[in-house]
């Protein structure tokens, strides 16, 4: 049975500042409306492409969205930043209205777009539980009956009569989530709230969300954390530039999402001939490739280099830096390669499995002579991503650290 039905939903946003220019537009729009004409700015509204500069002042943040959600379903909504996920949740939460189209709903919706909405820093934890609960739609007696449970879940019993401004940020989030976790709506909308709190608390939150869906309630969940989405949701929507590009079971949607992300990742470079190859009059790069294509934490990673040396020297120093997306150099490694003029020289480097953490990496390459005279260098030639496909413990966040070796423990 469908509990949410979204039909031809559109949301238009205007870019830029509000000023006298917008007043002219408003007056013009009003004048068209008075004469029974359609909105003159709807036609100039363009698709939502964040990176492309366009002359149009209006964009469709959402464009013709259609889907249904059945009772008890946990629907993941995924997509890149700016794909329209949050806009969709905002409309579902009634924070803002759609421009066109409508959403039909069966049952009470509670939305959690942020934890601790309406918390007042000067009020105590106790007072804020009541305030926040009421803002989220609970009645006073409902909150009263669940008060002890909420406090126990948050784990801040000792500070319950202290103003929340004296709380650590962790305690604040715990208390806020505890209130939200005890909402009992038929439909729950959750946006990225799992990004906060420590591992233990995340585990608790995910457990709670699983309980919620287990009780036959419907959950809509937005996250960038594919591990969490995969573990919670049964079905997913993939949004791209304000439209639904895929609606299906969780695995296939996530795979497709990861593939579209990977399009920007250049795992191999390859040049056919010496003449067109990247380099200078001393070195030409034929190819650099990283295998396997899909890299898991446990996989060995093989980086293969092929190049032509145009120098009389017989040995070339090949050096590369492995850098992660936050510009931290994980390591630098070099080797001496036998290179004969106009023949392809090759070198291969293996990075062991269970060494790199899950992240996106790129390679900077440097060529030197044996005496370390620089010949050629190139930054960010190839990228690759190390993923974690499966996890068998209850923490779904990224594990800290540049590297993630398996270490010997005794306990």
């Amino acid at each position, binding site marked *: 049975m*469908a509990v949410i*039905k979204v039909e031809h939903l559109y949301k238009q*946003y*205007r870019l830029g500042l*509000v000023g006298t220019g*917008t*007043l002219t537009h*408003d007056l013009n729009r009003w004048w068209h409306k008075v004469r029974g004409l359609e909105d003159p700015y709807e036609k100039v509204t363009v698709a939502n492409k964040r990176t492309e500069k366009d002359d149009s002042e209006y964009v469709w943040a959402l464009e013709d969205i259609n889907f249904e959600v059945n009772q008890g379903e946990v629907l993941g909504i995924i997509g890149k930043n700016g794909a329209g996920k949050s806009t969709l949740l*905002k*409309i*579902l*939460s*009634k*924070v*803002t*209205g*759609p*421009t*066109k*189209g*409508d*959403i*039909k*709903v*069966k*049952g*009470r*919706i509670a*939305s959690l*777009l*942020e934890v601790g*909405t*309406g918390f*007042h820093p*000067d*009020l105590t934890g106790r*007072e804020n539980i*009541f*305030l926040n609960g*009421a*803002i*989220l*739609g609970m*009645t*006073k007696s409902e909150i009263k009956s669940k008060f002890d449970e909420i406090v126990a879940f948050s784990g801040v019993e000792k500070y319950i009569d202290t*103003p929340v401004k004296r709380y650590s940020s962790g305690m604040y989030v715990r208390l806020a989530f505890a209130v939200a976790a005890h909402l009992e709506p038929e439909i729950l909308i959750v946006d990225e709230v799992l990004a906060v709190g420590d591992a233990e608390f995340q585990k608790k939150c995910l457990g709670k969300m699983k309980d919620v869906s287990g009780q036959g309630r419907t959950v809509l969940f937005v996250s960038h954390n594919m591990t969490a989405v995969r573990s919670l949701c049964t079905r997913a929507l993939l949004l791209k530039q304000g439209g639904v590009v895929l609606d299906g079971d969780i695995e296939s949607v996530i795979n497709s999402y990861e593939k579209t992300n990977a399009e920007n990742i250049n795992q191999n470079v390859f040049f056919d001939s010496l003449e067109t190859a990247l380099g200078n009059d001393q070195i030409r790069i034929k190819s650099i490739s990283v295998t396997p294509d899909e890299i898991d934490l446990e996989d060995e990673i093989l980086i293969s280099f092929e190049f032509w040396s145009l120098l009389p020297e017989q040995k070339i120093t090949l050096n590369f830096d492995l850098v992660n997306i936050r510009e931290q150099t994980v390591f630098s490694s070099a080797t001496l390669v036998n290179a004969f003029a106009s023949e392809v020289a090759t070198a291969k480097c293996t990075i062991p499995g269970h060494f790199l953490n899950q992240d996106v990496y790129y390679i900077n390459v440097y060529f030197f002579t044996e005496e370390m005279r620089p010949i050629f260098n190139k930054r960010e030639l190839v990228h690759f991503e190390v993923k974690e496909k499966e996890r068998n413990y209850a923490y779904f966040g990224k594990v800290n650290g540049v590297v993630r070796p398996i270490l010997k423990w005794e306990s």
Partner: protein
Amino acid sequence: MINTQENSNNAEWTEVIGPKKGLFDINLMELWRYRDLILLFVKRDLLAQYKQTILGPLWFFIQPLFTTLIFMFVFNRIARIPTDNVNPILFYLSGITLWNYFADCFNKTSNTFVANAGVFGKVYFPRLASPVSIVISNLAKLAIQVVLFLVVMSYLIFTQGLSIHINLSILLLPYLIFIMAVLGLGAGIIFSSLTTKYRDLSFLLQFGIQLMMYATPIIYPLSFTQGNMRTLISLNPITSIIETFRYSFFGIGQFDLMPLLYTSIFSFIVLGLGIIIFNQVEKSFMDTV
């Protein structure tokens, strides 16, 4: 066949979120369902106001007392504006007490959307809960100031043998306050709806309310004005409230049901209009605020 099934299915939807609302599609029942939230907002406002102050609610005494003293000095002693044979302290204090309530209601509700954008942007509840709670929490301040007025009055009666003429119209006091709340709320939410996109009006409002006080018989009795001026000031809906209040304690000024009726109708029209505009704006103000 399929069609009929869809139709019966449609009837089960409890809510439809669409782009537009009808002009009179106002859900006051929903506001009533959120009454606990309104009361918690009131409690929050009251608690948060005095946290980390030593004098707490005593601060509410200080503002009207000082204003009264300054009015006495400027308007009574220097400008020599009469107070209809009423003790000037009581005359000004009575006017200020009531006026403050109206001005606070108007002022504080007039930026509902802008001031609450953070919360409104994250969660839905009937937006009217915010301004309604402001009007209620201001009652606490009004109560304290009415007590102050009564204390000062008793003091003057006992020490200076002041005679006052309290009469039955004092029973109208709760209604006077209610009407001021209605007018303040109505005017406030109209302004808050008009200022979400273009903030220009909020500049006007600040000194507009201040100027409006001078168009209300606070520092002078209505009997002091004449001719066209008097008609004009009688058109101010607050005038009859102040005059009735003073009449009920001092037996002076104008007491007539007609002006009160005028004020009541005016206030309810403003509130009705306010709710209609507010209801239209609340739907998508987040995009423009």
